[in-house]
């Protein structure tokens, strides 16, 4: 048998095989289904792969501006709980030392109480006069779509 095989010119045989036809008849999905990818990945030394990656070159090819343009910074800022940030960090102390005084505190307090009274009066009027509609502010200062 071995002598017979030795006499066969395999290259000549392979040259006559239409590989494309052969590959068309192979169901690659079925082949892949039989591959245990987890085992393959387990055998890959990721660190070694990463060692071979030139990260500097990769980052240099990134268009960071285009990336940042796609980020909605306003949405991120909107998600920030600034009150908690101010409450729980030294940012609050920094703000106090840089911008506040006893007078500022008193003025802030007085103004906010006055606004509370404005709001209460507006609510009372709203209860008495159900169809009462107000605009938030002059068109040049406030977006008319804003809540009143």
């Amino acid at each position, binding site marked *: 048998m071995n002598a017979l095989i030795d006499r066969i010119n395999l290259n000549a045989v392979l040259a006559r095989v239409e590989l494309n036809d052969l590959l068309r008849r192979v169901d690659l999905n079925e082949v892949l289904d039989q591959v245990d990818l987890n085992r393959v990945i387990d055998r890959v030394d990721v660190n070694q792969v990463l060692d071979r990656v030139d990260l500097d070159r990769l980052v240099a090819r990134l268009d960071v501006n285009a990336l940042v343009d796609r980020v909605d910074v306003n949405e991120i800022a909107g*998600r920030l709980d*600034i*009150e908690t940030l*101010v*409450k*729980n*960090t*030294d*940012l*609050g*102390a*920094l*703000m*106090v*030392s840089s*911008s*506040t005084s006893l007078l*500022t*505190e008193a*003025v*802030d*307090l*007085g*103004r*906010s*109480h*006055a*606004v*509370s*009274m*404005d*709001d*209460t*009066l*507006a609510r009372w*009027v709203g209860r008495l*006069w159900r169809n*009462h*509609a*107000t*605009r*938030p*502010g*002059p*068109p*040049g*200062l*406030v977006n008319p779509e*804003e*809540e009143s």
Partner: protein
Amino acid sequence: MTGPADAGLPVPAPGGAPARRVPLTTRQHLRGHYAGFASRFISFVFDCAISIGAFELALVAASFAASVLAGTSIHWSRGNIWVIVGFFAWEFFYYAYFWTASGKTPGMVLLGVQVVGEEGGHAGTRRGLIRTLAFPLSFILAGFGFLGILLGRDRRALHDVIAGTAVVYCWDAREARLRSLARRSAARRS
């Protein structure tokens, strides 16, 4: 900052978490919004105190100057026609000057409100003067001229409508709220 403003309105938290109550002053910075009756009234009370106090002080100063320079003391009677004319002229000057110059009297600065044109721009000299002249009308009509602040769509009094002006908040309530939180946080830490 405490009080009713801090009661706020429930605002849905992201991710379906329970709604949290956010103070009114945090919800909106208020700057540019029509000012309410209380803020305007309190600022007017401050202005009355300041302008009348300044006028009284001027009378005392004039009496003192007369006694020093002429050696005769002057007693100003509140019923004296010249005192009355002087008082109204001073009041006119006081309001006209501040409303035309910056739209803010000292009382308004304290309460963080400002006179602006009805479209939101600077009130200007003409509108400031008309507003000052029309201001007494709101009193003369048994105070009904002020009802527009409570009931009107734009919270404008009669003298605002006549002059083509409006009164808006000019302070940043959100900034003040953050300052207040910062103070509390600093007090807790110290």
